[in-house]
């Protein structure tokens, strides 16, 4: 499969995530959008790394594996981030009975 397909899919996912972060007010949705952006990047990394691996297979068997390794790291970090982020959102809900981030601008005053 040509790399272009992966690229466009990844770009579409990233844009959806970005627009979601910028426009939505619900903290959980924003959170999901961030995950979406992370996954778009993951997809891209895996796609490129696979492409390189196939191209240089004859040369060296380990070429193009580091991109896939990155993905594991990103997934681990994302998982950790999810646990912290969800905890924050829970605390936020307990305090203000809402998950709308527009209510969180009180420091300004």
């Amino acid at each position: 499969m040509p790399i272009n397909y992966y690229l466009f899919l990844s770009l579409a996912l990233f844009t959806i995530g970005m627009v979601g972060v910028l426009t939505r007010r619900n903290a959980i949705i924003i959170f999901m959008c961030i995950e979406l952006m992370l996954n778009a990047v993951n997809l891209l990394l895996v796609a490129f790394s696979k492409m390189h691996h196939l191209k240089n297979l004859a040369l060296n068997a380990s070429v193009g594996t580091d991109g896939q390794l990155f993905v594991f790291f990103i997934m681990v970090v994302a998982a950790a981030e999810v646990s912290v982020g969800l905890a924050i959102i829970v605390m936020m809900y307990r305090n203000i009975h809402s998950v709308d981030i527009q209510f969180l601008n009180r420091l300004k005053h």
Partner: protein
Amino acid sequence: MFSFPNIAYFIPLLPLLGFLVNGLGRKHLSKGAIAWIGSGVLALAFAASLVVFLNLPSGGPTLLNAFDFIRIGELRIPFAFQLDALSSLFLLIITGIGFLIHVYSSAYMHEESAEHYGRYFAYLNLFIFSMLLLVMGANYVIMFIGWEGVGLCSYLLIGYWFRKPAYTQAANKAFVMNRVGDLAFLIAIFWLIARTGSVNFVDLPAALSSLSSSDITWITMLLFVGATGKSAQIPLYTWLPDAMAGPTPVSALIHAATMVTAGIYMIARSNLLYTAAPLTLNVIAVIGIATALLAASIAIRQNDIKKVLAYSTVSQLGFMFLAIGAGAYGAAVFHVMTHAFFKALLFLGSGSVIHAMSGEQDIRRMGGLKKVLPITYFTFLIGCIAIAGIPPFSGFFSKDAILLSAFLKSPILYGVALFTALLTAFYMFRMFFLTFGGTFRGTDEQKHHLHESPLAMTLPLMVLAVLSVIGGWVGIPELFLHGGERLIEFLSPVIPVVEGHAISHSTEYLLMGLSTGLVLSVIFFAWTRYRQYRSEESSAPFARLLENKWYVDELYQTAIVQPLHRFGGWLRSFFEPKIVDGLIQGVGRSIRYISQQIRLLQSGQTGNYALWMVISIVVILSIQFFVRK
């Protein structure tokens, strides 16, 4: 340490020590202690000066290098003292007469409170210190330090009674006028450094060859402008009569031993440069004789005893500059010396009179003081005869030397100078007869208080009177005494003697006889006119012109001071609030406006920040991608 030449370090250090002790301890020391310290350091400095004078090697100067004052690249200005005939002579005059004036002051200022008494003596000591620095410095920069110090001390002492606004104004006037001259002096120093890279006096002969003649003319002119400020010549002379606001001994100090002689000293010190600048010499001669004549004419109609003496000082300084202009530096220095004797005597004498008259200074309200103030009367008479120039008193010899040099330069100069000398004799004896002759014209209360001054005041008068008589004998012309003109010969290592008086003995006798005869007849005329007091109120325009000092002060007031005041007022009322403040407040206001606009970016909405972040990233990436290929 106590031998030549190192003892010379003590000469300026002792007055500095006196200044520090009296200045810092003025609240703790008694008046007696202050007077003893103030005068004592001067006595020791005089002794040290005597040692220097007596041990002075003939020939070249002795240099004392203390340390490098300034060292920038090639330029090296040492903090050095130069001991030679000229500086040692001035050291003797300054410390000797300074000492007498200190002793006199201890009695004259006795009514001051101890604190102010200490302040007074501290200033006096600092004054002497600055003057010593001025004459001992081995280069123009050290001289300039003393020069500025003298200006500062004159300001402090003229404004000593600072509670009277008129006195502080006089002090300001003296300081500001001196600054005008100082600026020229400073430019001359810079010019010299730029052209020759050295300001040492010993390097002057070598520097002379590397300077172009226009350089020399400019430098000498600028130095001369500096001298007109300090030595009160046209156009910067008006501060000196106003300087009478200070205590009388201070006037004596300024007029006789220190300050006003600085200009003469500086030019005599740079005589090599001046000899190479004939144009400057001509200017100096003209300015000198014009100042002498102008001041003498003003003095005729003054009624304040100190004002008469002040104008006579300006006039005598004019004579000295005339001598310099005629190339007779030695005669000028000679006149500085004799003038120091008799002018100190006259000022201290007038102080004694003012003391007796309980502060009265108007000679129209004096008279008949001969009987009550015998010592003052007698010494004052000697001073008047000396300044009038009657042989064998000191003034005759120095004035005769100046007249002779003027005659050799040009007969016109001689004529004007002789006329001025006659005016001098006239106004001095007018003052003398009005003060001491006739009958007492003051109030009964003043008459009741009349008394001769204490010994601390009369003793300096007597010493100075003796000096005024014999002081001129060091310069008796060759004509009378073989091997005469000792002073000129003594000064010859510094001031080369110009050979060949192109004048016959008979002419010289004639000139002397002429001046002496005329002076005597003028004194007789003054005697007939002022033996008995009569009112001098006159509405003749010329008399009024003289009474108002040729309206020079008014001229300066309208031509310089008032425009400056108006300019200052304009700056204050328009430039400062509108332009300066407007500029500064405009900067402040625009920054506040911009901040107010930028503040809105910080909305507190996370989404906003994220949006800005995205926009910025897109912008940066597109720049990266499209622009910076």
